[in-house]
């Protein structure tokens, strides 16, 4: 990739689209300086963020819209997942390991996002929605820093 590529997606909050988000992110990463391990890691992170938008943001209602913005440049890949759902009351608390507002869940989604991506920012407003921004640096960019 010589220049910047920015792909924007909009899709309804149904579980089928988690797989779609994964494939799109993986395909964009595959054209860059990343390994299969990087792809697997990013796929888990994106699955978690999109699942959260559907399950928590829209409480599993199929009529919400999820927005995915993927920006690739020679340094790395940025993924933004947005929903206009219920929002998060306490983001710091929500990001703690094993915290979940649903009884039967592991509460590890944000932990996975943070361990598999180089950077994760969460912006949320109750009743407005949630925006998760994740970044993964290319292998080459990583080497340059070391």
């Amino acid at each position, binding site marked *: 990739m010589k220049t910047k590529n920015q792909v924007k997606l909009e899709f309804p909050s149904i579980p089928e689209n988690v797989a779609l988000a994964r494939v799109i992110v993986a*395909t964009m990463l*595959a054209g860059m*300086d*990343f*390994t*299969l391990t990087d792809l697997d890691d990013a796929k888990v992170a994106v699955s978690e963020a999109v699942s959260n938008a559907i399950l928590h943001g829209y409480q599993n209602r199929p009529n919400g819209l999820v927005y995915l913005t993927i920006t690739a440049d020679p340094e790395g890949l940025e993924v933004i997942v947005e929903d206009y759902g219920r929002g998060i009351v306490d983001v710091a608390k929500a990001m703690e390991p094993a915290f979940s507002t649903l009884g039967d869940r592991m509460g590890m989604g944000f932990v996975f996002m943070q361990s598999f991506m180089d950077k994760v920012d969460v912006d949320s407003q109750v009743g407005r929605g949630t925006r998760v921004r994740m970044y993964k640096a290319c292998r080459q960019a990583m080497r340059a820093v070391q």
Partner: protein
Amino acid sequence: VGEIRRFLRDDSPVKVSRSYKEIAQRIHRVRQELNGSLGREPTVQEIAGAMNMPVEDVVEALEAVQLPTSIHETLYQ
């Protein structure tokens, strides 16, 4: 026999397609070979290059053979 096999492959439900499985197995083999020769994990582009295949086909084959496992199984298998 070749014709029948082709017919079976092409008309089988996509998710359990034999050709995707074969490609995925080859991907893992090439990944291991390159790991040995390069002394580090190869990039997807390097794997696709060695297989003479577009990178998106590598992604597609791996995604197609992935069973709908939960996140737990994915991470702790």
